[in-house]
């Protein structure tokens, strides 16, 4: 039987931060915004999330959340995995060209 208190990274205390890193908050906010805009129903989102959680039970929760978001965005034919992957590379390039401390922005594109 697992002792919850022995799990690394799990605090049983009150008042832990809601998000540990900014990207978690963004990934969370994107899902809520898409649902607000009726891109998918909450049931559809829960199914997508449960599928990933079951596949990777020990993965960080918000990493699973993000993978589920990529999956649903692809399966709903909003944006394909290929397009996402291409855009991700553009962001890495943009970061490499941005001096440290300045906001990273994509080069304007047509």
């Amino acid at each position: 039987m697992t002792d919850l208190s022995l799990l690394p990274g799990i605090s049983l205390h009150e008042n832990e931060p809601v998000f540990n890193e900014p990207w978690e908050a963004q990934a969370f906010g994107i899902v809520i915004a898409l649902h607000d805009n009726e891109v998918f129903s909450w049931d559809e989102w829960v199914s997508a999330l449960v599928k990933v959680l079951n596949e990777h039970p020990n993965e960080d929760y918000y990493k699973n959340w993000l993978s589920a978001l990529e999956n649903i965005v692809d399966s709903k034919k909003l944006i394909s995995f290929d397009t996402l992957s291409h855009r991700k590379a553009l962001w890495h390039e943009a970061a490499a060209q941005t001096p440290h401390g300045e906001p990273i922005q994509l080069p304007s594109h047509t």
Partner: protein
Amino acid sequence: MHSHDDDDHSHLTDIEARVRALESLLGEKGYINSTAVDEIVQTYEKKIGPQNGAHVVAKAWTDKQFNDWLRKDATAAIHSLGYTSRQGEHMEAVFNSPDTHHLVVCTLCSCYPWSVLGLPPTWYKSPPYRSKAVIDPRGVLADFGVHLPEHTSIEVHDSTAEIRYLVIPERPANTDDLDEKALSQLVTRNSMIGTAILAPAEKTK
């Protein structure tokens, strides 16, 4: 001197780049806008949290009519205080008593009463809690330092996308002279999930 060629420019982790890719593309295609996303994040970080649930609990302790309403139609009673779920699920309030202690879990994923408790803590989303709460609720409570009398039965409630539970803990002893506002300060997040019980208040002189 060492050269640090990589240190003079910015760097995104792989996961940050994935999030930026999603946000920029979804924004360009008009499915979301970044201001709305930022507002949602702000709301969940600052405005929605266990203080909402604590308000509901304190009102249930002090207002008999509200208490009855909460038992019959928790969704409407909670809505009357201004706490509404964007996901549209129904709320059910479960009341602890000396005979029954209520414990809430989501065995499937992490369904949680966001409108009254904010976002779930890490342990609530963890596989061990999700599986152990149903099989061995008394053991889970012991992990949290809660030891109930043998005669108190434990009811476990499994949340879903459609229905979420709020535990109304027992009002602590020595609180007869406290008003709703002071009472709400005593209510902890974990007590509203069922993984804590409220200690008696310090006796005032």
